[in-house]
């Protein structure tokens, strides 16, 4: 199999997640080349051909233009698969490329099976095996599903001629993440609240357990979106990535974006009523119980 990987850059720097793509190429035993809109001064450490479009000419975010460059590269490379990360860049760009190439896109790939792909569904609770009906396929791969491959090498750079800047979506700048009141990355213990906590009034129960364990309070996305806990406490791909000695997930079902931000924790305890919740997949201990009963009982014994 021959594949074209779509690397990612932000602010002239290679994103580390690009090396999950090379990991996927290794898992698929595929011959790979890489397409990359980025800076010529910070290239991904990969071997093989690297199709480089200079971000200075292409713009930081210009989906129509990035799509056209990828379509051009596909014509040159003739790959069986065009592989993106299942990230904000991949979500935005992969379907545009699939539509332009008139081929199937298979999203959120977590594994490879004979003649097809294993993908997540139902909020990560279930899996589907999907087979494309088109000869070529566009894939987005789930972060963390394939090992990082940073073996390096020096790429053979193929510079793509800077296109005439055009496009209907005009990039107008970044808005930095809110200043973090707390740095969860340094915490040894994190006790996080999820939707299963029920309501804002119950958050102090979780905070009390965090305090009793000498740790910090974390939160899953729905709890932050609902305004129960500030964003600076959010754990996951759109919040902070953490790896404490102990992570206690209270009423968190385990959306993939949350798992990606905390699964490197040394020891994971999950408290959930739902025995099938995806958090159980990565927890060292899953307590099947009502968080509102269990958490105060645990706090009382500490």
């Amino acid at each position, binding site marked *: 199999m021959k594949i074209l990987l779509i690397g990612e850059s*932000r602010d002239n720097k290679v994103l580390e997640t690009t090396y999950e793509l090379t990991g996927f190429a290794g898992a698929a035993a595929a011959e790979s080349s890489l397409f990359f809109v980025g800076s010529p001064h910070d290239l991904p450490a990969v071997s093989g051909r690297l199709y480089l479009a200079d971000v200075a000419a292409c713009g*930081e*975010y210009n989906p129509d233009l990035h799509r056209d460059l990828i379509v051009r590269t596909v014509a040159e490379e003739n790959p069986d698969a065009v592989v993106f990360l299942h990230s*904000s860049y991949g*979500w*935005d760009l*992969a*379907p*545009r490329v699939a*539509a332009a190439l008139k*081929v*199937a*896109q*298979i999203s959120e790939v977590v594994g490879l099976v004979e003649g097809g792909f294993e993908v*997540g*569904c*139902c*909020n990560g*609770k*279930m*899996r*589907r*095996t999907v*087979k*494309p*009906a*088109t000869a070529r*396929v566009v894939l*987005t791969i789930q972060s963390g599903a394939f090992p990082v491959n940073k073996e390096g090498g020096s790429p053979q750079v193929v510079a793509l001629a800077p296109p005439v800047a055009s496009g*209907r*979506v*005009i990039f*107008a*700048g*970044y*808005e930095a*993440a809110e200043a973090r009141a707390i740095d969860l990355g340094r915490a040894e213990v994190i006790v996080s609240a999820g939707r299963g906590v029920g309501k804002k009034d119950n958050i102090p129960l979780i905070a009390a357990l965090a305090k009793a*364990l000498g740790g910090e309070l974390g939160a899953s996305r729905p709890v932050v979106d609902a305004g129960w806990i500030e964003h600076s406490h*959010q754990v996951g*791909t*759109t*919040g*902070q990535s953490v790896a404490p*000695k*102990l992570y206690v997930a209270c009423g968190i*079902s385990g959306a993939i974006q949350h798992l990606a931000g905390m699964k490197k924790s040394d020891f994971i*305890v999950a408290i959930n009523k*739902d025995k099938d919740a*995806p958090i159980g*997949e*990565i*927890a*060292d*201990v*899953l*307590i099947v119980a*009502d968080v509102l009963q*269990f958490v105060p*009982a*645990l706090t009382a014994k500490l």
Partner: protein
Amino acid sequence: MKILVCIKQVPDLESRFKANSAGVWFDETDLAWRMNEYDEYAVEQAVKLREQLGEGSELVVLSIGPDRVVEAMKKALAMGCDRGVHVQDSAAAVKDPAQIAATVVAYARDQHFDVIFTGMQSQDRGSAQVGVLVAAGLDIACATTLVGFSYSDGTITAKRELEGGLKGIVKLKTPALVTCQLGLNVPRYPTLPNIMKAKKKDIAALPIESLLSTPPLAATVSFHPPAKKGGGIVLEGEVGILVDQLLGILKEKTAVLR
């Protein structure tokens, strides 16, 4: 100005799922249904835009699926959509994203919507493709994963959620499609008077055959739970005993209890 919002009805994701007899999607028996969470944000933003524009604008809600999806559409109408379009398809669950998008495109092509809202993905399939594919099919501008939206004089300013709390600001001219991320706004609860009013709003029914004629580009061959990785301990029982068991484990396996 014409606005379209596309919604999907999904099962309660807290449910236990098991494969249907064909083994390619879940069995629908005993499932409770609701509007896809991402689409609630899309409906809210569409209603807000409709309110901003006032008289002379129209907001249409579209859904594809069996008769049960009308319930989700009624909620959207009670939130403030003007009328509904129900694309009747008892086999919508096995359509691939390209087919769902082609159906919306076939409906919307001659309607000249100025702004189309969708959720960024569905909670059950999660392909995050349909909105972008619709924009591609209609050849209109598109921005995804919105956590901020404003409209003025034919230009949308959108805030896109990237990774690690970073956001990207983009501007696009209508006609345009945007896909909505959780947290974009605070979806309203329909009030009783609005629920009553919604009962009188029109929902047009269109058979899927009138809009879709293309085959799928990919096929699901199996639906199953993830392989258990093993290693993790599952504890069940009385809370007091569970607490003691957990404390024992934490003392043995971690250095955090002193």
